[in-house]
């Protein structure tokens, strides 16, 4: 996965993501594609969650999956999550759960609760940073004011080295793939470098929904695991998604 939040020169925040999933879950030799990735694509739906006939939040979901991986609370905040690998992983959390130690939260139920109940960027940030989890994760959160965006790197119990937008220091976007931002990504799976190269080449002056879509369409940021691309603009309350394909030659991940 690749998630990013960028601030344009007028202080608008654009939040976008490629959802990549299905690694090692079966490769289709004939079609040069991942089995589960191709099975997930037809399940992608956009959902408008309403209460009292008013939109509470909107999301891009896989039908049948009640948790949230990508969503917008219109005019308030935007949220995506990327997978984080750690030896202290989800299987330990699941084991604890089965043995009756149930003080942790299932990741996607937390993101669903945040989108459904939090009413500000700060509240969402606190919940995503402090709630104990069953599995590690990256939460990429965008707010509705200039400078409000961060990458929350979560272990099961802590938030590690939060990275914030800092436009004055030249950091006008934050970008997360599946590696801790203070470490080099695995050289076999470096999507961060090409994505940042294209963001820097775009420049803040030209950043927009269109040019962010260009970045997420550039290989290997776009790869055989990419199921969908979602683009969100909190100031317009807008979410749009597209199911993707990656023509050969294309990286398997």
């Amino acid at each position: 996965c690749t998630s990013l939040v960028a601030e344009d020169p007028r202080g608008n925040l654009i939040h976008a993501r490629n959802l990549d999933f299905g690694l090692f879950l079966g490769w289709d030799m004939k079609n040069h594609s991942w089995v589960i990735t191709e099975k997930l694509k037809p399940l992608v739906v956009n959902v408008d969650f309403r209460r009292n006939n008013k939109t509470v939040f909107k999301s891009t979901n896989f039908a049948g999956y009640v948790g949230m991986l990508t969503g917008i609370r219109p005019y308030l905040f935007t949220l995506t999550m990327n997978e984080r690998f750690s030896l202290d992983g989800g299987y330990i959390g699941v084991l604890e759960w089965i043995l009756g130690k149930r003080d942790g939260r299932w990741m996607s139920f937390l993101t669903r609760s945040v989108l459904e109940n939090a009413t500000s960027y700060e509240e969402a940030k606190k919940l995503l940073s402090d709630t104990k989890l069953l599995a590690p994760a990256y939460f990429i959160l965008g707010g509705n004011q200039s400078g409000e965006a961060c990458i929350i790197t979560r272990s099961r119990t802590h938030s590690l080295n939060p990275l914030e937008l800092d436009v004055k220091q030249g950091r006008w976007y934050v970008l997360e793939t599946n590696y801790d931002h203070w470490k080099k990504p695995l050289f076999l799976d470096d999507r961060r470098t090409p994505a940042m190269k294209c963001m820097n080449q775009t420049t803040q002056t030209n950043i927009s929904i269109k040019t962010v879509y260009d970045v997420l369409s550039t290989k290997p940021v776009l790869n055989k695991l990419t199921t969908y691309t979602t683009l969100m603009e909190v100031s317009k309350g807008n979410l749009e998604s597209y199911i993707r394909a990656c023509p050969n030659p294309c990286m398997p991940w």
Partner: protein
Amino acid sequence: SLQFVPPYTEDCRTEMYPPRGPTFQSAVTWYTVNLDSPPSKRWTEIITDKKDELVSMVQAIKDLADAFVPSGRLEELIDKALPMMIDTLPYPFNEEMKGIATASGVPLGEVILFNIFYEIFTV
């Protein structure tokens, strides 16, 4: 231009929006979920539309499970053990999963596996 060796990095793409061409497979359908409805009823419209695709995806995961454990024990574990944990999962998500199983005909254990796959997959 594209390098023809992995990771096939290409020059930064431009003018890709609005989405079209070989990297654009299709648009995404919008649905409404009414949070005032009983949790077990919320997903019925979506699941009714996407039932075949959900069954197909779950079957692919079962095929994978059988590939790892040919005896079928893993699949049996999913269908027998996971439903026992449904009421340990937080409300209203547990009720929503029951509604999805009912609307799709997919066994509850397999709906639960799909929904906790993130934690399981880290194995």
